[in-house]
C-alpha cells in the first residue's frame, strides 16, 4: 500500500496517469463501436503507422506529435475506406499497410541512430515518454469524445448496430464513421507512447470484448468498458511501478485477467 501512494510522489507517474486515464477512457468508448463494426484491425493498423511516423520524427528531429498526428489521421481515413470497400479485402490491406509502416519505421530509425533502446520504447511503450503537451491534448481529446458520446449516443448506437438502416433513415453515417476514425487516430497517437505501438490496440479491443462477456445491452457495454478500461489502466500502471515490470505489458496483462474473470462470470450467468 505504501508503494501505491509513493508512486504519486513522482511527477512522471502523475503525468502518465493524467495522459493515460483519458486515453484509456476514449479507447474504450471508441473501441466498442470499432469492435462491433468489425473494425478492430484498424486500431492495430493505425498504431503501426504511428510507429513509422515516430521513427520519421525522431530521425529528422521533429516534434513527435506534429508528425504522427497528421500521418495517422490520413491513414485512418484510408483504412476506413479500405474496410468499407468490399471489392478490396480489407483485412489483407490493413495487414500490408501495418507491416509496411513497421518495416519503413525500423529502417529509418536504424539508419538515423542505430538499433537502440529508442525502438524498444516505441514498440513496447515507456512510462517516461509522456510530456506536458501530451497531457493537455489528452484531456481535450477525452472531453471531445465524452461530449460526442453523450450528445450523439443514440446516433452512435444506430450507426453501429445497422449502418444501412441508419443511412436509409437520414443519418449521415459517413460523417460519424469519419469522426470516429479521426478520434481513434488521435487516441492511438497519444496512447502509443505509454502502451507501445505493438500493445496500444489492446486498449481499444479488450474493454469492449471483456464487457460483452457479461453485458447484453449497448448502454451497459459502453459504461462497463469505460470503467473497466480506466480501472485496468490504473491497476496495470501501479503493478508495473511496484513489480518493476514494463508498463504497457502490465496493462495488457491486467486486461487479460479481467477478460478471463468476465468470461467465467458470463459462462456461469448463462448456465443458470
Amino acid at each position, binding site marked *: 500500500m505504501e508503494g501505491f501512494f509513493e508512486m504519486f510522489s513522482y511527477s512522471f507517474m502523475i503525468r502518465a496517469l493524467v495522459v493515460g486515464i483519458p486515453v484509456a477512457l476514449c479507447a474504450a468508448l471508441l473501441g466498442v463501436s470499432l469492435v*462491433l*463494426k*468489425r473494425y478492430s484491425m484498424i486500431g492495430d493498423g493505425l498504431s503501426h503507422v504511428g510507429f513509422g511516423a515516430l521513427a520519421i520524427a525522431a530521425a529528422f528531429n521533429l516534434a513527435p506529435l506534429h508528425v504522427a498526428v497528421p500521418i495517422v489521421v490520413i491513414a485512418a481515413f484510408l483504412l476506413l475506406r479500405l474496410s468499407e470497400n468490399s471489392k478490396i479485402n480489407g483485412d489483407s490491406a490493413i495487414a500490408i499497410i501495418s507491416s509496411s509502416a513497421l518495416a519503413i519505421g525500423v529502417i529509418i530509425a536504424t539508419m538515423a541512430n542505430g538499433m537502440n533502446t529508442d525502438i524498444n520504447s516505441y514498440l513496447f511503450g515507456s512510462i517516461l515518454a509522456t510530456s506536458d503537451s501530451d497531457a493537455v491534448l489528452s484531456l481535450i481529446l477525452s472531453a471531445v469524445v465524452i461530449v460526442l458520446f453523450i*450528445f*450523439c449516443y*443514440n*446516433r452512435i*448506437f*444506430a450507426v453501429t*448496430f*445497422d449502418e*444501412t*438502416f*441508419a*443511412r*436509409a*433513415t*437520414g*443519418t449521415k453515417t459517413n460523417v460519424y464513421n469519419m469522426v470516429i476514425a479521426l478520434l481513434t487516430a488521435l487516441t492511438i497517437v497519444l496512447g502509443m507512447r505509454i502502451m507501445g505501438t505493438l500493445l496500444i490496440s489492446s486498449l481499444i479491443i479488450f474493454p469492449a470484448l471483456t*464487457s*460483452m462477456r457479461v*453485458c*447484453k*445491452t*449497448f*448502454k*451497459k*457495454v459502453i459504461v462497463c468498458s469505460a470503467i473497466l478500461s480506466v480501472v485496468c489502466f490504473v491497476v496495470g500502471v501501479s503493478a508495473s511501478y511496484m513489480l518493476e515490470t514494463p508498463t504497457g505489458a502490465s496493462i495488457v496483462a491486467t486486461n487479460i485477467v479481467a477478460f478471463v474473470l468476465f468470461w467465467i462470470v458470463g459462462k456461469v450467468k448463462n448456465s443458470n
Partner: protein
Amino acid sequence: MALLTCNKATMSYDGRVVLKDLSFKVNAGNYLCIVGENGSGKSTLMKGILGLLPPAGGSFDFSDGLQQKEIGYLPQQSAIQRDFPASVWEVVMSGVLNKKGFGGFYNRADREKAVSNMEKLNITKLKKRCYGELSGGQQQRVLLARALCATGKLILLDEPVAGLDPIATNDMYEIINDLNRKEGITVIMVSHDIVSAVDHADHILHLSSSGEVFFGSTSDYTHSDLGSRFLFHNCSCNVCRMKEHNHHIYAQNHREGEV
C-alpha cells in the same frame, strides 16, 4: 394518389447498368411485391428507393407528405447483428431517429410510439431481452417494430422471411397483411418466394436479368407470360397445380373470347 413514383429510373452498379428506364407507381395502401431472379436488380432498385444509391437517370419521387428518409426499412438480416449486445428496446427506439436533429435525444412521444409498435407486433414482453438471444422470427419482429417507428406510411421489406422456419414465415406474412389491411400501411416487399408473393400482394413488379419487366396487378401477373413462366415450374404442390389449372381456364376463356 401515388406515394412513390419511379420515373424512368436507370440504376447502375459497379459501372454496369442494372435497371434501365424503369417506371412504376405505388399508391397509398398498395401491397407491392418485387420479384425476380438473382442479379435482376432487386437490391439495386431497393437502394435507389431508399436513397442509398443515386439513380444514374430518372428519379424516385415521393408525395403525399412522405419523405425518402421516412420509409420504414426492414433490411435483410446480416451476420453482424447476430451477437450484437443490444436490448430489444434499444433497437426499436433507434427507429425514431429520422425525425430528429443532429444529436437525437428521445422524448416521451418517441417512447410511447415505440411501446405501441411493440404491442402491435406482440413483442412487449421481450423489451429487456438481448436482441442477439432471440429467435429469427422474434428478431424480424423487433426490426419490423423499428421500421414502424420510422414510418407511418410505407414499409420496405427486404426478404423478410429469408431464414425463417415455416411457422415464423406464416406469422410474418400475417403480420405484414395486418399492417397493410388494418393499419393502412403501404407495403413494398422484395421476395424470392414467388408463390406467397402472388398470394398476398395486390401488385407485382417482376424484374429479370434479360431486362424483361412486368408491372401490374397480381391477377394480371399470374396470366402474363413472365408470370406463368415463373409460377409453373414443374412443381406439383397443390398451390402450383391450382394456379396452373386456373391459368389454363383463363387462357382458354381468353382464346374463346378472341374467336
